[in-house]
């Protein structure tokens, strides 16, 4: 298992980052940025899938709430009806999670690559040798230069700029992807997560090598751009919650039957509302 991890994930990321370092003026900060862009390009189809899944999820929210109300006392029935609704709407509930899952191993591998390639400790440098490809170019590059702007990439940012950038960019992205809801419990969860995730990542940034925080910041910025291009600003500038679900006590709209999209027909991405 450890060998699979090393051969398939860690070593390619490690060696690619060293090659990028040699191309980008022996600057590991630039190499991390380039690596982030490459990873985001590779995972682009998954990101689009995630955004579309979230968007579809938002469109069925009113119907979901109807079901929740209708089957409040029958969890099993509610579960069945929910899955049926997802199926009708062409939503894969796991679609929101997969891109996130794909990024976890990348983060871990990148973190290890940063510490080992930059020789944070002698043990890290010693453990690096077996993981390098047999290329004189790669061997001539290590250990890499750890300086980037004001940062030592093996250490947390002492000026506290990166924690703010990571937390801020994550909040922005989170705010854009948050699915508007009228369910008070869901609203409370959304509010909590909107604050908790950026704070958690900012806290990690205080602790981990700043090279990883550079990756997070750039990755978030790319995520924000992609999100904007696909769905616009999303929940960022929407001050009001969407109309309560049809049929709810607060609704002034007449309930209309839900129509699932025709199967096989691709839904177009919505451009930002101006």
């Amino acid at each position: 298992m450890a060998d699979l991890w090393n051969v398939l994930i860690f070593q390619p990321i490690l060696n690619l980052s060293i090659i990028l370092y040699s191309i980008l003026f022996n600057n590991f900060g630039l190499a991390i940025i380039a690596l982030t862009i490459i990873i985001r390009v590779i995972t682009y189809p998954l990101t689009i899938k995630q955004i579309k899944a979230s968007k579809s999820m938002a469109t069925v929210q009113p119907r979901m709430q109807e079901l929740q109300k209708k089957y409040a006392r029958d969890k099993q029935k509610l579960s069945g009806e929910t899955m049926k609704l997802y199926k009708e709407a062409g939503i894969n509930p796991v679609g929101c999670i997969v891109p996130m899952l794909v990024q976890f191993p990348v983060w871990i591998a990148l973190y290890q690559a940063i510490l080992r390639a930059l020789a944070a400790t002698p043990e890290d440098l010693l453990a690096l040798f077996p993981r390098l490809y047999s290329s004189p170019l790669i061997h001539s590059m290590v250990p890499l230069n750890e300086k980037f702007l004001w940062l030592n990439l093996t250490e947390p940012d002492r000026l506290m700029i990166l924690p703010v950038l990571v937390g801020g960019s994550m909040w922005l992205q989170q705010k854009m992807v948050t699915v508007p809801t009228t369910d008070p419990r869901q609203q409370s969860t959304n509010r909590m997560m909107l604050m908790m995730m950026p704070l958690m990542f900012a806290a990690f940034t205080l602790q981990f090598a700043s090279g990883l925080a550079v990756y997070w910041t750039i990755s978030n910025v790319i995520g924000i751009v992609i999100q904007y291009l696909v769905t616009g600003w999303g929940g960022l500038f929407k001050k009001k919650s969407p109309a309560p679900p049809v049929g709810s006590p607060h609704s002034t709209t007449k309930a209309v039957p839900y129509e699932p999209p025709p199967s096989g027909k691709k839904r177009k991405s919505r451009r930002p509302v101006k």
Partner: protein
Amino acid sequence: MKFTGKNQYIFITIMLIILVVSVSCQTAPARGWSGPAAVDGTIYTGTIAGKVAAYKGSNGDPEWQTTLPTPATSIGFGCGGPAPKAAIYSHPVSDGKSIFLGTYEGVFYALDTTSGALRWQYPATGRGKAIIGSAAVYNGNVYFGSSDGYIYSLNANNGLLREKYLLGKKIWSTPTVVDDRLYIGSFDGKLYAFDLKKGLKEESLLWTFSSNGAITAGPLIANDTIYIGSFDSHLYALDKNSGRVKWSFKGSGWFWEAPVIKDNLLVAVNVKKDSEPDKNVYGINALTGQKIWEFGTQGSVRASPVISGNTVIVASEDNNIYFLQADTGSQIRLIPMNSPVLSNMTVDAGFVYVHTREGLLSAIDIEKGTRVWEVSTYPKEK
């Protein structure tokens, strides 16, 4: 389970916690690999407990041990938590009065040889960048390189800074000082030669030699020749006065530490991939660079070998100590140590002293291949 709403967030949070634990556990904490040094029948070593300890060379009886004061470190998520103790990679060196060594925390210490009392430390307060290489003592000064890219020269008596000179990249190499000249390698792949009569400054730089990889090894000087290994997998023989290459020898991996020499036999070792059957111990003609013999250990060899009589002793990461015939490279015996050996060894009075990764210090009779005594420098707390 539905991956929506609350469940989705809970799932992501759990994954984040797993991430934090994973990354913290996957990286190697700085533990140190200080090796033994023999001075007047006493064995001194840094330990993974952040101490410097002295033992009687003849029977291993403890003489003293001193815990090095550690500057504060940040609180970590790491598996072992924050490191409360100093990590010591450098090997003790002595001028007779003091034991000198530096720590990963960036503090350089002088301890009294007889009592272990702290004589001075540099800097006097706070911390610098990691000091990995060992020091060289010469003419009342102590010289060492640091990860901040400087070579330091301190007064050996009081620890006051005499000079420092910036080379640029990290310096993990141990300096060698001979005939008023100081030689030291750097992560920038260069070996620098300074004329100490002029001090450590731009004008005193005599020459530099550039390799295609980082240099962590200390230079070995013999017969007007400097032998230096590099991460470019080459061992170079350089003219001592000009830095001109006399010959080079290609190994299978990084030359992390200095080679050793006896007569015209040079023995050098390589860091290698455990899974590959590469040879990583080489007997080389010191005059021509021709390979005389080669030998393969199961694991990497980071530490310098030692030569005693006709025996070459090699410590490996594969938990073994190898005894080889110096003239043929054939194996005489293998001594299992139950732990990797990354520290340099030392030979004194027919014994080789070995300090393992897990803190076992052993005295081995070279002739008989038997352990004469062993002590734990890192006793488990009860």
